[in-house]
């Protein structure tokens, strides 16, 4: 929609009688007169924009409608931390979502090596001094050399290369409206030295940036940008312009580099019926969209990714694409799926072979419509799809694939039940989900049947944190789930003072087992990678430290 009336289309007026056409013209002119003659509506739009800025600067829990009940101010008697004038609680699950992707991608790599070990450790108390980066087997270790001490206004999670975790990419950006120069950098030695990277467009026109390293090659890296200059943006990629203010532009661009970010080339992507899009690779390009966990997934030399429409036409789409040349070119591999459904909710390749799995919905994914979800399987890398059956519940929040000891594919999904449909103060319906480890289900027959995970193994008074879906799997095929106290409200993560503890389970086990100590702070990325000699594995954690004036990252390392 533009400021002006959308052009009259031939389809719309071609068959109108002369009288109807007269009415059409009357309404057309009346609407145009109303739009241009109501400055109060324009002023309201400006006030809404101001309000949106205020909301962005505040914590979600600090904002409530007058129709809402008061939010709790304590969790088990512990006040939330207050920083400046803003009461900080939580945050946004998007960062973890995007990052979990890294974990999933790496877990696929790790599954080939079979090097994970079960462990139990002491926890690191909050506020402990950063230590050197010598990993120990009994605790998380702060990696000060990777600490990002610079405060930022808007950027994405650091991207740890799955194939070589010593290679890390970072972005610094400051929101579209600030017009401050964004910077990119890369380390090849775990943060000992950093290399500044060029930006493919003017740095002060970058509003947000996200990077993702290929699971096949640490120096093949993808860069997603929001830019605020029309000069940098093809016309068909400009998001509906103009209405947020004079000359306001929001444009998504995506680039690929095969030399660690030294040189960038626009990514060669297909279009969805003429609508351009971007790969769903990180928090910037996907916003934590669940499709393929917002990351690149490797199956042998083939790559899979989600594809989000991102063009001027603002057409909603969520597609599945694949590349057979290391990510240089991409093709849709979802023709059968799109013929039978309106939305691909989730998709993942099996760790080996050419099997790909997908979940589709006849309407929106995860909405209050509670539509029956369909499970699909492709045995030929997405060229053809077979309908397997329906999912046990209409709520599919995350899916993971792994291999058991015999090489059989395990498909895990978080499938909470709808315990009730709540009604908000505006009369809108939304589902209330169950919150049990039994909501984790596994299929050993490619989605034909599903079985619940047990609930035993975690302390009483604790519950899974499904905000980000299940994690993993580990190399033995186990799925990983973060666990939090029951008393933590469902919408609280981030500065959760209790932290999260990681537990794992696989088919055949009667109980969940703890695999890592509790960590504090806002867990935003979890990455598991085998050591070069295959003797152990290392689990990397990225924690976001939030403050009133900006945010920084802390990296934690632990050897399994």
């Amino acid at each position, binding site marked *: *929609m533009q*400021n002006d*009336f*959308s052009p009259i*289309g031939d*389809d*719309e007026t071609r068959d*109108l009688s*002369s009288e109807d*056409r007269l*009415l059409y013209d009357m309404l057309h*002119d*009346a*609407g145009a*007169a*109303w*739009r241009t*003659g109501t400055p109060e*509506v*324009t002023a*309201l*739009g*400006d006030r*809404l*924009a101001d309000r*949106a*800025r205020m*909301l*962005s600067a505040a914590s*979600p829990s600090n904002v*409530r409608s007058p129709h809402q009940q008061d939010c709790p101010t304590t969790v088990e008697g512990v006040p939330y931390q207050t920083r400046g004038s803003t009461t900080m609680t939580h945050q*946004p699950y998007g960062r973890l979502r995007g990052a979990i992707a890294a974990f999933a991608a790496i877990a696929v790599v790790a599954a080939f090596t079979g090097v994970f070990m079960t462990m139990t450790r002491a926890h690191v108390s909050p506020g402990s001094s950063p230590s050197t980066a010598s990993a120990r087997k009994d605790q998380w270790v702060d990696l000060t050399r990777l600490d990002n001490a610079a405060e930022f206004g808007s950027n994405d999670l650091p991207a740890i290369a799955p194939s070589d975790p010593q290679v890390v990419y970072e972005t610094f950006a400051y*929101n*579209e*409206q600030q017009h401050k120069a964004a910077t990119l950098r890369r380390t090849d030695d775990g943060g000992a030295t950093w290399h500044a990277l060029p930006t493919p467009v003017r740095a002060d026109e970058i509003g947000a940036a996200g990077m993702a390293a290929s699971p096949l090659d640490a120096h093949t890296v993808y860069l997603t940008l*929001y830019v605020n200059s029309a000069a940098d943006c093809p016309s068909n990629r400009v*998001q*509906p*312009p103009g*209405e*947020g*203010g004079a000359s306001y532009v*929001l444009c*998504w661009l995506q680039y690929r580099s095969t030399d660690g970010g030294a040189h960038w080339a626009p990514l060669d992507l297909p279009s969805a019926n003429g609508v351009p899009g971007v790969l769903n690779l990180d928090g910037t390009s*996907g*916003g*934590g*969209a*669940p499709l393929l966990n917002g990351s690149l997934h490797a199956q042998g030399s083939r790559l899979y990714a989600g594809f*989000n429409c*991102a063009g001027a*036409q*603002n*057409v*909603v*789409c969520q597609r599945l694409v694949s590349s057979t040349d290391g990510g240089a070119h991409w093709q849709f591999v979802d023709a059968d799926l799109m013929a039978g459904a309106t939305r691909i909710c989730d998709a993942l390749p099996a760790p080996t072979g050419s099997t790909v799995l997908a979940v589709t919905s006849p*309407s929106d994914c995860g909405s209050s419509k509670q539509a029956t979800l369909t499970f699909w399987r492709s045995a030929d890398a997405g060229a053809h799809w077979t309908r397997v059956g329906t999912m046990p519940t209409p709520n599919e929040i995350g899916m993971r694939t792994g291999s058991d000891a015999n090489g059989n594919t395990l498909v895990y999904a978080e499938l909470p039940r709808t315990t009730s449909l709540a009604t908000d103060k*505006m*009369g*809108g319906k939304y589902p209330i989900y169950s919150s049990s480890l039994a909501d984790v289900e596994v299929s050993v027959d490619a989605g034909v049947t599903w079985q619940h995970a047990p609930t035993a193994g975690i302390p009483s008074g604790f519950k899974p944190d499904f905000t980000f879906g299940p994690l993993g799997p580990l190399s033995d095929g186990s799925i990983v789930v973060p666990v939090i106290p029951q008393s933590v409200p469902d919408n609280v993560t981030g500065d959760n003072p209790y932290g999260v503890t990681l537990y794992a389970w696989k088919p055949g086990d009667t109980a969940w087992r703890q695999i890592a100590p509790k960590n504090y702070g806002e867990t935003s990325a979890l990455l598991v990678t085998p050591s070069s000699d295959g003797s152990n594995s290392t689990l990397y954690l990225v924690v976001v430290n939030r403050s009133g004036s900006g945010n920084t990252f802390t990296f934690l390392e632990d050897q399994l």
Partner: protein
Amino acid sequence: MEHERFATLVIPHTAAMARVAAALVGAVEAEDAAQEALLRAWRGWSAFREPSAVRTWLLRITINVCHNWQVGHFGLSRRATEPLESAAEEALVAVGAELGTSDHASVLDLRRALTNLSDDLRLIVALRFFVGMDATEIGILLDVPPATIRTRLRRALALLREAMSGESALSPTLSTRDGGGN
């Protein structure tokens, strides 16, 4: 979705939210309705997963809030067409003035005809002509194929014409604008 990105992605569409709200509940009520829609979007932001669809998502919320506003979920009970009628009347009078006519009767006839349209047709007329959306965007918003929107629009025009022809003929002055093409 990160809450820091809320403003970045939402601001380009606040003018559209304001316009939709004003068209559906009137300029006076639009302030509260649109603010409520914005808060509702904020509360749902962490679960929102499709930034490319943010515009559609925001406008759907706005339409839903306005619908509930009209049917009384906010303690108000308003005729759904009242704001559009007022807007249409004022705008149509302005159009008539531009065309050199003061034929207020046609304006009143059209207002009355709009009042008698069903809710779904009135919504399409409001979004098409007063908000200025095309059939494709309306279809995405209402989860209806664009062709269906065009069909309903023709149906609305036919019903308006029938309603008006039953009361008075269209203004001869306005009729002169009928060129049959565009």
